[in-house]
């Protein structure tokens, strides 16, 4: 079966996720404004250097604490539902094989890409199939962080009714710190991701309007009938 580089379901969930992520991050930052400290009362976390720093209003959604909480807890369901559609498709379709990081296939390639980006190596390692190793590593890292975001959020939302989850994440205040640190990591990823897309604009077309029903890596037409997963 010829397969699109970016199947439509992946494109749709990608852009829906961007919208939901912006809403969740903006409303979350407005919630943080109400108490911009980490750690319990009288026991602020010393390692958190931004104690008391209010997120700028321009980055927030919801206007005030009650509004932001309603935004956050309303869109959390849509954020999770969209992620479940994505993960369901990723595994049911077998797409995970060419998207998720596999150390045997991608580790050397990822390291080579890092050396190339640091100007320590002339040639960039060629992509293996859809992505190079570093892309697989960072996309897989983001996908692994998403459940942590949801679980730490649930632990804060229901610390009494979900006591084991909250304890597993180090308690209410530590879950709150995890929630914020994961946001910082996802925001950092987004910045690098957007820079990479600007450097390689064709990938933007691939994630939006490009129709590419022709299978990749095809040498002769007969190969199109061979399932791609065949080793």
């Amino acid at each position, binding site marked *: 079966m010829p397969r699109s580089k970016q199947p439509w379901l992946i494109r749709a969930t990608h852009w829906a996720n961007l919208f939901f992520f912006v809403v969740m991050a903006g409303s979350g930052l407005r919630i943080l404004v*109400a*108490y911009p400290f980490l750690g319990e009362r009288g026991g602020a976390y010393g390692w958190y250097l931004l104690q008391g720093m209010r997120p700028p209003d321009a980055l927030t959604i919801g206007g005030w*604490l009650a509004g932001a909480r309603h935004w956050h807890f309303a869109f959390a369901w849509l954020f999770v539902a969209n992620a479940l559609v994505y993960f369901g498709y990723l595994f049911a379709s077998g797409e995970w094989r060419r998207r998720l990081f596999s150390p045997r296939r991608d580790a050397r390639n990822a390291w080579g890409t890092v050396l190339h980006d640091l100007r320590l190596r002339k040639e960039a390692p060629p992509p293996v199939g859809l992505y190079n190793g570093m892309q697989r590593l960072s996309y897989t890292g983001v996908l692994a962080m998403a459940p942590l975001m949801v679980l730490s959020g649930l632990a804060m939302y229901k*610390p009494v*009714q979900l006591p084991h989850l909250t304890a597993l994440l180090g308690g209410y205040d530590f879950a709150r710190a995890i929630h914020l640190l994961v946001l910082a990591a996802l925001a950092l990823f987004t910045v690098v991701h957007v820079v990479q897309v600007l450097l390689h604009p064709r990938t933007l077309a691939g994630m939006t309007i490009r129709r590419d029903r022709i299978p990749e890596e095809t040498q002769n037409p007969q190969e199109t009938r061979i399932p791609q997963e065949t080793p």
Partner: protein
Amino acid sequence: MTGSTRRHFLAGGLRSAGLVALGGLACDGDRPHAGFLGLMEGVNERFQRALFDPRRLAPELSEEEETAPEDFPAYKISRELPVAPAGWALAVRGLVARPLTLSVEELRRLPQTRTRVRHHCVEGWSAVASWEGVRLSELARLAGADPRARYVEFRSFDSGYWSSWDLESALHPQTILAYGMNGAPLQPEHGAPLRLYSAVKLGYKMVKYLTEVSFLPVRTGGYWEDQGYEWFAGV
């Protein structure tokens, strides 16, 4: 009508129709009980009620985990510290077989409970204190609360601050009317002579400076709830 004004008229009409259609789905942080946000508040309340287990207790913490008293925030809506009226007594009324009026001494003679759990504020902070008082379920039993009363309303003398709860959370074993904090009599800044305290709700649901507890068949609102804060607010 010229072509241009007709176009304006049509565009305006379409815009209004679109706004009316979208109104049901609007997300307005200034009116969070309305539109899509209000709809999802209902979904979240069902989710929270489904997770709520009336027998599940919040972990009781040790004395070492108590927050230093000066670090435990005190909060009121009155400008001045509210002062209990002379001859203060708690009224228990509504759908009850025996309406009660209880002085602090009478409350102290009822079976005493102590709970030391983590306090979760809607703002995001947490703190720990121990609270001494009488279980609300004990008062419901004494007053003979009617099973048709599904809600409990709490009133105060802090400029009329109030709130209302679902019955299940109100009857939880760690929901108490507290007259003591950290082993000492409750201080005025923390709600003396009597305040509501609970392990299963956010802080703004725990009314201080209590005057009245009513068992009601219908849901009412609250000081913050009416301004847009979530009504259920369980933790």
